[in-house]
């Protein structure tokens, strides 16, 4: 009898103990690539380091295959109060683990599913891509931009369309060619794709993939490149015009603080340029001031909320005109290309 009561009390304390934060919540991260990729995962890890600097205990597991992520997410959930999972393919595994650990908080990047204790978050990277493309469009002498596509999902298609629309601000006749490598990270293939695009006439290369291979190839061929996710100028400053980058620390500090203060609610956060979660790095010295002014004008419009990339009408690749502003849902499910992209959209 006594043992039973003691057991019950211990259990109650354990349950209470796990729901009341002992000090600052500890945070776990599940990464799809290596933290040394110099791109997507590297950017997330900078955010994790910001949490660490703010006094949170953190840990991470890198290069976790999407198909095998559930095991890792569960392990992180046992160890930490908050778990960030930072790849689209982690969505369903995260949801499953979140249901099994109702006392923990899960934040999934770039997906759309939610639960009581699982939110999703992302940044409006397409806004930064749009601004970077204004520079790219103005710097292309041949009037052709080559894009190295990673995985053909709506997020990347949205970014590609933003690049086409942004480049058209500088050169209405610009052509955009897309090659999909069908991988997030494959440096040799990224290089080869950039080379193929350059061979085919592009003189500004924009990559959607995680490594800086395209910047290197652009440098070798004497053409320009736009970096992806983090500042890639160190890999070839001769080629690097600017990069559309993530500043995840802005979001991570805020979200973790909300959990700590008990004000956190599951939802869907899609922060824009104004929050600072996305932005551009410094510009190549070749970029003329007039072009930067043009870009800043558009930036001002987005920051003030006067305009967004897909809200003031555009023409699809098949010639149909879209006049209504796209909703977030429509943007999240984007499958078509806009006019100006000369490649066929990915099937399926």
């Amino acid at each position, binding site marked *: 009898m006594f043992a039973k009561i003691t057991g019950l009390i211990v259990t109650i304390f354990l349950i209470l103990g796990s729901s009341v934060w002992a000090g600052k919540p500890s945070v776990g991260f599940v990464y799809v690539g290596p933290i040394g*990729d110099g791109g997507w995962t590297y950017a997330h890890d900078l955010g994790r380091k910001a949490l660490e600097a703010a006094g949170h205990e953190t840990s991470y597991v890198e290069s976790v295959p999407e198909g095998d992520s559930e095991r890792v997410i569960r392990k992180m959930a046992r160890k930490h109060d908050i778990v960030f999972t930072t790849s689209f393919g982690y969505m369903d595994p995260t949801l499953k683990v979140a249901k099994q650990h109702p006392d923990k908080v899960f934040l999934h990047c770039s997906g759309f599913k939610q639960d009581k204790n699982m939110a999703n978050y992302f940044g409006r990277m397409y806004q930064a891509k749009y601004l970077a493309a204004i520079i790219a469009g103005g710097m292309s002498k041949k009037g052709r931009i080559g894009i190295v596509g990673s995985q053909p999902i709506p997020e990347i298609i949205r970014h590609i369309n933003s690049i086409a629309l942004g480049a058209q601000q500088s050169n209405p006749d610009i052509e955009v060619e897309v090659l*999909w490598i069908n991988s997030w990270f494959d440096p040799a293939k990224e290089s080869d794709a950039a080379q193929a695009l350059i061979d085919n006439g592009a003189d500004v290369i924009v990559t959607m993939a995680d490594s800086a291979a395209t910047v290197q190839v652009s440098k070798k061929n004497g053409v320009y490149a736009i970096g992806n996710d983090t500042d890639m100028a160190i890999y070839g400053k001769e080629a690097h015009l600017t990069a559309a980058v993530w500043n995840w620390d802005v979001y991570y500090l805020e979200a973790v603080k909300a959990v700590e203060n008990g004000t956190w609610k599951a939802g869907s956060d899609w922060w824009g340029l104004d929050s600072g979660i996305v932005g551009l790095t410094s510009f190549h010295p070749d970029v003329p001031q007039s072009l930067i002014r043009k870009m800043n004008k558009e930036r001002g419009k987005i920051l003030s909320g006067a305009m967004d990339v897909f809200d003031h009408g555009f023409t699809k690749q098949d010639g149909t005109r879209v006049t209504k502003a796209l909703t977030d849902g429509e943007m999240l499910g984007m499958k078509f290309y806009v006019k100006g992209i000369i490649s066929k959209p990915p099937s399926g």
Partner: protein
Amino acid sequence: MDFFIQILIAAVGMGTPLLFATLGGVISERAGVINLGMEGLMLVGALVAFVVMLNTGSYFYAVVAATVVSGLVSMIHGIVCLMLRASQIASGLALTFLGTGLSGLFGDKLMGETVEPLSRISIPGLHAIPVLGPVLFNQDILVYFSYLCVVLSWWMLFKTRLGLNIRSIGEAPEVCDSLGLSVLSYRFYAVTAGGMLIGIGGAYFPLALTPFWVDGITAGRGWIAVALVIFAFWHPIKALGGAYLFGFALALELRLQILGIDLSPYFLKMLPYVLTILVLTLVTIRNNRYGIQVMPAALGTVFFRGEKH
């Protein structure tokens, strides 16, 4: 035509690291030792080559260092599965994890560093041959070295006593042992030599394909090489064809998109493995029906000296 030649040039570039690694695998497996640590060894080779290149600026030292270090690391595989008689499969997998981890650990500080990639050298006379000239004889020095390695390993395996011994040990180690050959020594040397070649395959990434260091730079090519060893029927010359075929598939995937041809990327991605399964099936059928043995008979087996089987 130019477009087609560009595909072939890219195919050779993409195929070269696969070729080195496959040759390494062929030599090791001919002696009867499976090496599933190829991905790890390639990463070690890639890291060492990059670090040495960065500090000395010499391609020669970079390749030599990558060769030596990956040879040393593959000795771990040799010690574990030959002397300690552990499972070759488990030891090889462990080697992949070890190589991936080591290269990530020591490569941590190298982000942002870059080197000058190997330049192409055209071979006078030969590079003027239509199609084949620009594709095969206007490449970098490591590509030429890979041709040499194909010829040398073929000659070594099939035209020398050393090669005969290695192949025999891969077929019937007990017989060789009774003839006074040291099975373990031959296997150990074959694993090490194979590891060296695999390391050069890794070195090709930072020295030619992607002249910087990034964690996981080989992006799984080591596993394709594991499959290629089988696809090549454990033969150096066929390894050349296999590596270039797979390189061609990688290069083609991108160029088909330029042409606007819709071919599922998943189909092209699974192609190496489907072909490998087909080849394995073929090998088994030929073995069962006609008694033609292609796969080294003692492949993957542990050799216990003086024990009856």
